[in-house]
């Protein structure tokens, strides 16, 4: 386990001057505002703006990232993959398009890395025509470079895209071959080692559905996970869709990776447990940098506002 670090300073692999300076400026500014608030002085809105600007641009420029602690809803997914016996079969569904990719692609990447590091086997599938290209790209970018010993057909296989939306799920939940007689390269499923003993989706050990539209994670839960004998399903969704998925947790889904925050939590959990990924790009954590700092700034301002308000003798603010 990497010991806990609140802020990882790894832009230049070590002590990083610009990060320290920018954080000192922001922190010092906050301190100054705290003292002002304790004197019951109000802050001009432009000062709020400056802090927001700094809080968003500093992490962007200097790659400041914050260590995330996985919340139970994300940890559920991580621990399932971690604790399954080796060589378990995991289905990864790519149900998204390039527009949604910035938010959900990091989740797919993190889960793929984790599963392969754990020596599980992966089955890729897409219900979106636009998903297949993203899937091919992901496979060709991650596997040969990071897991050169993994072989197509033995350790992973891509089934490609199939039209028919949730109808496809309805079929593969009882028979995969009927919908996908071959994999994406035209090899019959009967010749693919992963599918030995896999007749339907009920025979895989887990489904990780990544997406945000329809058909997508919700359909995987309803048509595959909820089918009698269906596999456990975990989902990764865009932030706007996450509230619609919450009602399924924890009864029907193992866990939910919601938006970039969910991706960041998973990445950080991965980094904690697998030092080998320390050099990997972690877009989730990277994109959470500005978010976290901005949220902290906003929360700090809410506290300042209340301090000023109470110390200032609860003066009437409203006109009229």
């Amino acid at each position, binding site marked *: 386990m990497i010991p806990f670090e609140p802020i990882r300073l790894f832009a230049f692999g070590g002590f990083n001057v610009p990060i320290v300076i920018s954080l000192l400026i922001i922190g010092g500014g906050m301190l100054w505002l705290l003292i002002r608030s304790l004197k019951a002085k109000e802050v001009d809105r432009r000062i*709020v703006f400056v802090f927001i600007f700094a809080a968003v641009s500093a992490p962007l420029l200097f790659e400041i990232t914050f260590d*995330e*602690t*996985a919340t*139970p809803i994300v940890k559920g997914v991580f621990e399932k993959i971690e604790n399954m016996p080796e060589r378990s079969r995991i289905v990864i569904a790519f149900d998204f398009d390039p527009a949604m990719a910035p938010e959900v692609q990091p989740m797919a990447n993190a889960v793929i890395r984790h599963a392969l590091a754990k020596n599980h086997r992966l089955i890729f599938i897409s219900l979106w025509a636009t998903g297949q290209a993203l899937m091919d790209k992901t496979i060709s970018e991650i596997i040969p470079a990071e897991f050169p010993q993994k072989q197509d057909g033995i350790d992973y296989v891509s089934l490609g895209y199939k039209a028919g939306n949730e109808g496809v799920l309805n079929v593969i939940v009882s028979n995969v071959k009927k919908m996908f007689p071959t994999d994406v390269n035209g090899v019959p499923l009967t010749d693919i080692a992963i599918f030995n003993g896999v007749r339907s989706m009920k025979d895989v050990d887990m489904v990780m559905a990544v997406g945000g539209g329809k058909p997508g994670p919700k359909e995987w839960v309803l048509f595959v996970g909820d089918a009698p004998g269906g596999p456990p399903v975990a989902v990764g969704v865009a932030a706007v869709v996450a*509230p619609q998925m919450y009602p399924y947790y924890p009864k029907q889904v193992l866990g939910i990776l919601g938006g970039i925050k969910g991706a960041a939590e998973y990445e950080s959990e991965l980094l904690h447990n697998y030092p080998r990924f320390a050099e990997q790009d972690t877009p989730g954590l990277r994109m959470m940098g500005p978010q976290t700092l901005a949220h*902290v700034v906003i929360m700090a301002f*809410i506290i300042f506002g209340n301090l000023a308000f109470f110390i200032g003798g*609860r003066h009437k603010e409203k006109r009229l």
Partner: protein
Amino acid sequence: MRRQVPLFITFFVGTLLIVSVFIPPMENLGEDFTLFFDIIAVFAFFLGGGNLLRVHLTKLYRKSPDWGFSVVTVVGFFLMLAAGLFKIGNPGDISASVTAEGSMFQTMFNNVVLPLQSTMYALLAFFIASASYRAFRAKNREATILLVAAFIILLGRTPFGMMLTAWIPDSWSVLQVPNLAIWIMNSPNLAGQRAILIGIGLGVVSMSLRIILGIERTYLGDDR
């Protein structure tokens, strides 16, 4: 004529559209009327565009303060209008989409409208911060509830939410901040949204009735 005809038109059209929902042969009426609306709205562009030009040309003519900026509006307007109506630089012919990639219309959209649009939109990041600073103060019970709910959700979206409450045992897990945030979104938030929606449903029904029955007619000039 001036008062009765409009009231009759409103009554007739409104009733017709409500009844049509229950009459299968008229089920497409709503769609057609929506299209009618769009067509009338295009005619209205003459009034709107004319007004926009009149305002800025008047400023120009009178040399009012900032008249120079009115030149920008007028020039931008005519450039874009010409690009769109004549499909200037469109890779296809007249049948190609007006927003075809590579056309002057789309290039201007991508490089003028789009950056302006997304930057205006991005101003929200600043305003949401200044609004939280000013508005979330525990002035009274209602404001305190608003503040606490917002704060829990905000905290739940940072690593600190989990860090602060990770010690809470699993049998009390609803009290861990991220779980609490989820619970708030799922339960009280949902209840509030529903109550608002049911009220809105009734409000719209009642207002539509008042309009159809001619009781509410301010929009037509309630010139009694």
